[in-house]
């Protein structure tokens, strides 16, 4: 249950402002793909177009195609809600629902879509999702406590459990570790390594070591200057991109010489 993503010549706009220009790439199922690049280069914006989350911001729209196993997400008549139930997302800052317990947070995707589920099945889903997010052993005794009482790293894993509980095809992660300490980061990276057995994972990160540790392919985005659109500079196997990049800009960025 994981699908490939193919992007053809995608332009992303905020109102009249062209934020990302001319991106084309193919992401294979059951792989981890990392997006790296300086702040403001459009990698998060591009990530959010993959499940139509950027449309939440008024005025945002795209030109071009995003194909999920051949189905165009931007064809007319596509329901963004249906897209998002296939392409899950984990955000930069952990955002468990404050009114819900740990268990209710995991079941949120199911319950909010008002699917009826027998108690035993729900309990099994909670355990499976929390085990999948490596959180089960830490919270199994306090499933009815509020999710916001967990530590930052635990909250982020709770959000991952919540995202995989609706069994998406693709999991997008927008800098999932940037608000976490190294130990929690390590736990999440381990988790990403396991998640790729079942899901197509796309992760935005500022941490190049993290990109090289967790991903098979890496995309480098850059921006020519403020107010200019971001571009996909290079997209290649992670090992190749970090050791023998073809573009000068990529080499400067990954080796720490900017410009």
């Amino acid at each position, binding site marked *: 249950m994981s699908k490939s993503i193919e992007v053809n010549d995608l332009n992303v706009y905020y109102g009249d402002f062209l934020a990302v220009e001319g991106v084309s790439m193919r992401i294979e199922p059951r792989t981890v793909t990392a997006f790296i690049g300086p702040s403001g280069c459009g990698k998060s914006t591009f990530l959010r177009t993959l*499940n139509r*989350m950027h449309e*939440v911001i*008024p005025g945002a729209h795209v030109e071009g195609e995003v194909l999920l196993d051949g189905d165009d997400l931007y064809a007319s008549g596509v329901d*963004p*809600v*249906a*897209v*998002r*139930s*296939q392409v*899950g*997302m984990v*955000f930069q*800052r952990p*955002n468990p*629902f*404050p*009114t819900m317990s740990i268990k209710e947070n995991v079941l*949120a*995707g199911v319950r*909010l*879509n*008002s699917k009826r589920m027998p108690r035993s099945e729900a309990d099994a889903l909670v355990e499976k999702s929390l085990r999948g997010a490596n959180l089960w052993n830490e919270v199994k005794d306090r499933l009815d*406590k*509020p999710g*916001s*009482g967990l530590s930052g790293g635990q909250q982020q894993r709770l*959000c991952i459990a*919540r*995202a995989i509980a*609706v069994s998406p095809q693709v999991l997008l992660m927008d800098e999932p570790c940037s608000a976490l300490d190294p130990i929690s980061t390590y736990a999440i990276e381990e988790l990403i390594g396991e998640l790729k057995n079942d899901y197509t994972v796309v992760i935005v990160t500022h941490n190049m070591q993290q990109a090289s540790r967790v991903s098979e392919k890496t995309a480098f985005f850059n921006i020519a200057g403020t107010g200019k659109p971001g571009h996909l500079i290079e997209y290649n196997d992670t090992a190749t991109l970090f050791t023998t990049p073809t573009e000068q800009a990529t080499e400067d960025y990954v080796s720490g010489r900017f410009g």
Partner: protein
Amino acid sequence: MTAATATPPSPTRLRAVNAVTVGRLPRAVPWLLLAGSWIVMGVVYGLLAASGATKGFDPVGTIFFGTVLFVIVLYTISRIVEGGRRAVDRLVTSLVLTAFIIALLPLISLVWTVVANGLARFDVTFFTESMRNVIGAGGGALHALIGTLLITLAATVISVPIGLLTSIYLVEYGRGALARSITFFVDVMTGIPSIVAGLFTFALFALFFGPAVRNGFMGAVSLSVLMIPVVVRSSEEILRIVPNELREASYALGVPKWRTILRIVLPTSLAGIVTGVMLAISRVIGETAPLLIVTGFTFSMNYDIFNDRMMTLPVFVYTQYTQAAGVAAQASIDRAWTAALTLILLVMALNLIGRLIAKIFAPKYGR
């Protein structure tokens, strides 16, 4: 074990005076100064009274000029001992505290007056009888209490759905000219004088039922006119502070927008919305002018808000006070004070209930 562990004492420890200390006034000094200033001014006013320049001792002048003297002296002493920044700190602290006490005085005075005058008739009869066939002493305000509760309840039932839905539209859906004009008109509505709301309701109902129409429902409608903008503004502000991250988290799970609003946004902001509604109720429950026009007044019980005149507590206060005359004037005035006390207690009880509800529904952050 090596000899190198014995380090010489650090040179800073040897200095007799710490370079970063400054002078400080002892804690008791401001209070002693305040008492001293009052005594000094008391002596001045005492001398003035003794010399015959003023008629008797003036306690208000003593306190006022004593406090002014205290502020000046404290600033000067603090400036000499503690330096400029702390002196300004003390000056502003005493000014803020004085302003706070001045602001509190009317409230305390008001509560004191109402309690002192209202306790005379705060008895069982007052809450079990109406004013029907009562001449002179006795009688009660049960009809007014029931009227106020029913009319306010009806006004709440009308205003909360309209106000809440409007604010949801403004926060979650509204874009462009329509949302802007709604915001503008809500602002205008906030400023409508309550008598205008009453006249509007009267004109509206008189169109359909003739000029003699008076009932409790009209009162509820006119209170709604006043209440809706308050509900819209308070719930709009509460809905806006719900973090966007929660909405996005819900969308990312494939949850439709309306369900996100219903199941994530509203529960998260429920405590604030309840508080806002309670404040709006407190705002309208004491309205007199529109009710005087559209519900009229009566001396009998009336449980039917759609028929006949209905008494309310504010109007009860008004009529008892204006119609106090003759031998039983004091009884009438006592009833007015007790009704005012009842109204204050009612508002206070509503606020306490609102806080309790807010506490129960507030998002929990326990471990």
